[in-house]
Structures are given as C-alpha cells and as structure tokens.
C-alpha cells in the first residue's frame, strides 16, 4: 500500500507542468552602495512574502539587473526589458525610473526617487516608495531627542518646497515654524542671518534651491556661530556639520517595496498598490556637533 502511494506521487510529479519563477528586472541608476543595500533588503523580504508557485519551483523569483550608468541609452534598456518580459520592474533612482517609465503594462516599483510625480505623470503601471521623509516623523524624533526645541527655522523656495512647510505646520501645530523664502541660492545666507536668534533648530529641506553645496556652508557656519543645531534629511550632511539626521531606512524601504512587489506579482493591479511614504525612519546624531553645540542628546544609532 505504501509502495503504491509513493508510485502515485511520483507519477503525479512527473506529469506536473513545469512552473516558471517570477522574473524581476532591477534597473539601477548607478551601482551605489545604498542601491545595493535596498535591493538586498527587497530580495530578502520578497523571498519570505512570495509562496513557491508550482510543485517544481525551487526559487520563487529571479532577478536580472541593469545598471543604466553602464548602458545609458534608453532605447537599449527598453529593448532589453521588452525581450526579457519581466513580471516586475524595480527602478532604483531617478534615471532608472526615467528609463523604464515608458514600458507599458509591466508593473514598475520605484525606490530612491526624489519627486517621482514629475516623472510618473499619468502612467498607471508605476508605483513605489517615496523618498520624502514625512515632517511628522522627523519632528517626532526631534521632540524625542530635543524636547526643548520649539522654534524651527527653515529656508524654503516657494516653487519647490512650500508644500513641505504647509505639511509640517499641519502635522506639528505645537511647533513654531519660522519659514523664510529664498528666491535664489544666493539669498540663503542672508535669509539665514535673518534667523539669528529666532530659531532653536534649522530644518534642511530637500530643495536644491536652498540646499546645495553653495549654501550648506552657510547653514553650518550659522549653526556653529549661533549654537543652533541643523536637522538634516540625509546621513550625508552629518559629516559636514549637521547635528541630527532623521532619514530614510534603506532596509525598511526595501522591505516596503518587497511587500508592494509581492502583491503585484500575486496579481493585484497596480492601481490597488499606490505609492507610499516611508514607514520607518532612521535617526543619527553627530556626536561632535552635538557636543560642540552643547545639545543634551547622546543617541548616535538609528532608532
């Protein structure tokens, strides 16, 4: 009886149709460490989220990677993708999203893209995780680390970052936002001077008009001169002089994208998986700056 059962199982297995694993095309703007980190997190998480399809499946999905900094011609990238016909495209970075945005029907998940709306426009096969760090998360961390901070000084450009100010004010009505508009980069130092004595913290916005290599020096000079800490949105500003960075967690972003990908691969339409803000942030303190600015915080590692 037992032998008969085993025999039947073997016949069933032999007769089973070979099941294909999911083909995921990873398109990267560049071969940068953050991208590799987020892909790793995406991959790990996806393996847990996707069930094995078919009896012969060993791996639930398969990755193919394209680094468009190595093959910058958009048509070539599109051609390769069309030939491969992947089940999903993971676009990492602005240029990657630009390269794949015109490929129809294949769901696209973007990551690490600043202001993706401008690129996506009305395309309905694209979704992803926004890079913007919500002000509420940032100031939640500030309130935790520096509860005495009430006056937030910020330089913004009306055209680019007025929404951020409005959102922040909306999210944290308990804080006072001294937001000064700079029409050009050159105005930033002067605007900063206007904040002298009026702010407990300077808030950096991801706006190229107000935050760029030419203005950063002004921020940090102001910070050290006036003993006002700078809150940055990326870890990269810590070594230049920012006291605290509340920034995205690449691992969390990868996992978040993996969740979206799993749903899409399992058949959910893209319209049901809308773009998401990051769900988790990472807070890093610059101990040197904190010490010099005499900030009562000691936390250095991400929360």
């Amino acid at each position: 009886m037992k032998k008969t059962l085993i025999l039947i199982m073997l016949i069933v297995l032999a007769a089973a149709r070979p099941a294909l694993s999911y083909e995921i095309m990873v398109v990267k703007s560049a071969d940068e460490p953050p991208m590799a980190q987020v892909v790793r997190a995406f991959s790990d998480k996806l393996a847990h989220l996707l069930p094995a399809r078919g009896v012969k499946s060993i791996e639930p999905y398969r990755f193919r990677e394209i680094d468009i900094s190595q093959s910058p011609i958009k048509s070539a990238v599109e051609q390769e993708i069309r030939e491969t016909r992947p089940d999903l495209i993971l676009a990492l970075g602005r240029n990657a999203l630009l390269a794949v945005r015109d490929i129809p029907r294949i769901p696209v998940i973007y990551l690490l893209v600043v202001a993706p709306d401008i690129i996506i426009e009305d395309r309905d096969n694209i979704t992803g995780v926004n890079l913007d760090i919500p002000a509420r998360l940032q100031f939640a961390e500030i309130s935790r680390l520096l509860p005495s901070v009430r006056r937030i000084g910020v330089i913004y450009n009306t055209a680019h970052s007025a929404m951020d100010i409005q959102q922040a004010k909306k999210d944290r009505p308990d804080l006072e936002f001294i937001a000064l508009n700079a029409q050009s980069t050159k105005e930033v130092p002067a605007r900063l001077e206007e904040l002298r004595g009026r702010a407990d913290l300077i808030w950096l916005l991801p706006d190229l008009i107000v935050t760029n290599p030419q203005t950063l020096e002004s921020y940090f000079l102001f910070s050290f001169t006036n003993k006002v800490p700078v809150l940055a949105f990326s870890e990269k500003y810590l070594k230049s002089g920012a006291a605290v960075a509340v920034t995205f967690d690449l691992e969390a972003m990868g996992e978040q994208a993996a969740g979206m990908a799993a749903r899409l691969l399992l058949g959910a339409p893209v319209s049901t998986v809308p773009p998401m803000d990051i769900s988790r942030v990472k807070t890093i303190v610059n101990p040197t700056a904190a010490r010099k600015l005499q900030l009562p915080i000691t936390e250095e590692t991400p929360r």
Partner: protein
Amino acid sequence: MKRWRPFHRIRESFIAKISITLIAVVLVLALLFDLLLIRLQEKAYERENIKQGLALVRLLAQSVRLAVFTENEQDFIMPVNAILGHEDVVEADIFNNDGAMLFRREKQENSLSRLVDNPQYLAAILTNVQTAGEMHWQTENSFIFWWPIYSNAATGNDEALFFEMEDEPPARELIGYAALVISKQSFSAGVRQILVNTGAIVVIFLSLGIAMSFVVVRRMTRPLSAILKKVKENTGGAGVGDDLSLLSETYGGMLQELERSFETIKELKDGLEVKVADRTKELSDRQLQLESANLKLSQTLVKLQEAQQQLIQSEKMAAMGQMVAGVAHEINNSVNFISGALPSVKRLLGDLKELLASYEELEQVRDADDRDRNITAIRSLKNDLDFAGLFATFEQLLANIEEGTTRTTRIIKDLKIFTRQGAEKFQPADIHSIIDSTIPFIDGKLLKGVEIRKEFDKLEPVTCLAGRISQVFLNIMQNAAQAMSGKGTLTIRTWQEDGQAHVRFTDTGCGIEQDIIHRIFDPFFTTKEVGRGSGLGLGISYDIIKQHSGRINVESKIGQGTVFEVILPLSPPIFPAEREG
C-alpha cells in the same frame, strides 16, 4: 750695512709671490662664493616667501568663499582681518568673477591699488589668474599674489541631495578672486640677515683659509726654498733680481745644457749606428785577428810546451851533467889515489922484483965471493932502493889506494842515496841525512873557497819524497855556491817548530835584486849567462815544496847575501799523488 726692505724682499721672494697669489685667489673665490651663496640664499628665501604668500592668498580665497558667494561685506571682515593680522600683509582685495571689487582692506597705499583701479589691467590679471590658477609678482617694496575663489557648484541632481555620489567629482564654480599684497620689509630684513650671516661665515672661513694657505705654501715650498738657497749659494746670489728670475735663469741654463746634451745625444745617436757598424766590423776583424793570433798562440804554446819539455830535458841533462861532473870529479879524485899510487906500486914492485931476483941469484951463488959480491950488490941495491922506506912507501901507496877505493864506494853510496831510485814514495826521512848526501853533488869547483857551516838542531823525520827534497836542497845550495863565486860561507841551519821542519840556507853571495826577487820562482827565469842555467831549477823546487804542502821563503840583500828557508810539515796533511813514484 744692509737695509731692511720688506716690500723689496716680497717682490723678490718667489714663495711670497705664491703666497700672495694664492691668498688673492682665495679672496676672490671667497668673494665670488659669498656672492653666489648670498644670491642662492636670497633666491631660496624669496621662493619661500612666495610660497608663503601663495599659501596666504589661497587661505584667504578659501575663507572668503561664503562672503564672495553672498557678496556680503560683513562676511569679509573676519577672514580678511585674520589674514591682515600677518604683519607683512599690507593689503587684501576681493573681486567677484566679473571683476567688481567686493572688498578691500589696506594698511598702506601701494601700487596694487593703482593697478587694479585700471579696468584693462585688472581684466588682464583676472584672465591670467583664471587660466594659470594663480599669479604673483613683485615690486620694489612688495610681493603681490592672486588666487581664484571657487565654490562648490550646485548640481541639478536631486539624488545628490540624499546620497553621496561617489563617482562624481565635486563640481566647482569660479566665484571671484583674492589678491594679497605682502610687504618686503621682513623679506629685506631677512636678506640683510642672510648677507650678514653669510659674510661673517665667509670671513671666518676666509681667515682660516688664508692661514692654512700660508702654512701649506710654507710647507710645500720648503724643498723649493732649499733649492733656491742652494742655487744662491752656487751663484753667489749676485746679478739676479728675484727668486723667480734666479730659478728661471738657473733652470733656463739647465734647459739649454739639456738641449745641448740632447743635441749631442742626437748627434751621437745619428753617428752611433755608423760607428757601431764600423766598430762591429773592427771587432769582427779583431776577432778574426784574435782567432788567428789565438791559433798562432796555440801553435806557439804547443811549440813552447815542446821547447819547455826540451828545456826541462836540457835542465835535466844539465843537472845530470853537473851531477855527473861532480861525480866524475869525485871519482876522478878517488881514482887519482889509486892511479897515483899505481906507478909507484909498479916501480916498488919492480924494485922488489929486482931485489928478489938479486936474492935468488944469491941463493944460487955458491962462491962466497960471489956471494959477498952479491950480498954487497944486494946491499947496494937496498940502499939504492931505500929498502927501509920501501915498505913504508908501499904501505902509504896501499893506504892511498884504499882511500881511493873508500872514496869511490862512498860516492857510489851517496849517488844511490841521491837518486833514491827505489825511494820515490812519501816516507819518513832524516832531513840532515838528505842534506849531507846532497852536498857532495855540488860542483866542487864552486865550493873551493866556500865554508859550509852546519847548525843542525834536533829534527824529527819528515814524511817526504827524499829524492825530490834532495833536488831542492841541491838547487838552493848550487845557486848559493854560484852566488858566492867560490868564496864565502854557506850556513845551513835546521830547527823544528810547530810541527814543521825549517831548513834555512844563508849564503854571503851577491844577493838578488829586489825588483826581480818575486820572479825567481817563475819558470825559465834566470840571471845566469846563456847556457849556464835553464831558469827551471827554482821553479821545479817551488813545485816540489808545494807538492809537500810546504813553502819556500826568500830574503836577499844586494852585496850581503840571500836566505832561502824551506819549511816542510813533518806530516803533510794529504799525501799528494805520487806522480813520479
């Protein structure tokens, strides 16, 4: 009195000239070296100042980036004041990238202010600074440095806001220019200090160099001084100006002599080959002549050897003749005893026969008368015959005959001893016996008026060839007898001393000339008349004594006589080969 003229002495002294020249060279070299060193140090110091100035202007450009970016005058004050805090920085100017002056701070009026106020000059300078990356020059009173001011350029990449873009180099943007004017006051003071320090060092080393040069010259020219001194001594030091002239003239003369010598050598060399050829030919001729002469000499030598053999033979014959003459004389003397006695013996024997016949007749006479007559006749005969003395005469004659016989026997005996035919072997012999047996062989005529005095001391037997020694003695005594011309004394003295037998023959003859005394033992040397001597006697004697490891000494004084002393070892150390034994 000689005046002390130091400058004159220096002018004359070669060593002083060398010293002064060397010191002058050292001085010039030191000055040149000093100037070079100062120049090098000045250049190095200048380069260092320029480097420092460029560093300052670069620092200024870096520190005013934000101020230039904002063009806020207040932002310039702090960084510019920091640079102007340097005591030598007298002016700092900041321009934007359009050439508009953003800030100026100066401690004193200087040329840069006037220069940059001219837009054309300024534009040229800024273009140059932008192209070259920096610019500097110097005026009489200051260094002027320019450096461009760059700011990090804002990129249009949003991702750069969030991430470190490793592959992209940070872009930069020219936003202005910084200019610094640095006073040369400190620089000039530094140069002056270099000048003083270098000068002091050079003076110290120069002093040491001069002192050492002087010492070295003194030491090195010591041999030269010695030569000069010698030359002056030889020339008397007169007529020559200074040492150099003296040396020059001396060595000039030597050179001339050398040239002459070389010319002579050359001439000799030129003629040498001809001379060598001539001489070679001459030598060849001479060699041929010599070979010819040598051949003749060889032939002559052979002839001489033959003649020598003949002479030796003649000498032998002469000696033998002399000996034979002596022997003949002796034998003749001895025979004279016999032959002189024989007629008398014959006569006496006739007398006796007559007497005996008378007695026989008497016996036969029976008659008394006749007997008486006969007896009377016998008596008369006896008387006639001196009968009484007849036997005495007879005995005397017999004695004479016996004497002659005895003498002849002795001569023969001596002759046997002399010839020693069976004794030519080294064997102990009595020298006295040899002398005694030799004397008789001296020509008796020569010894007529000669007294032979023997003063024999005690002598042990001498191992010798007795016949040969006898020949030597005979030669010496024969010569002595000849030298005394039949009148004089030949003293033969013997004694023994230190294992040697000494035999000294002293004659009172005419003596031998001192200038020929050393030649008397030479073969064929003789002073005798031709035919009387061969000149080999003493030569042979000399060889015989040498054969016995002995020696012959001779001393002579003209008119007083000659002394021959034969010294023979009692036992010759090595018996010579008995060539004739």
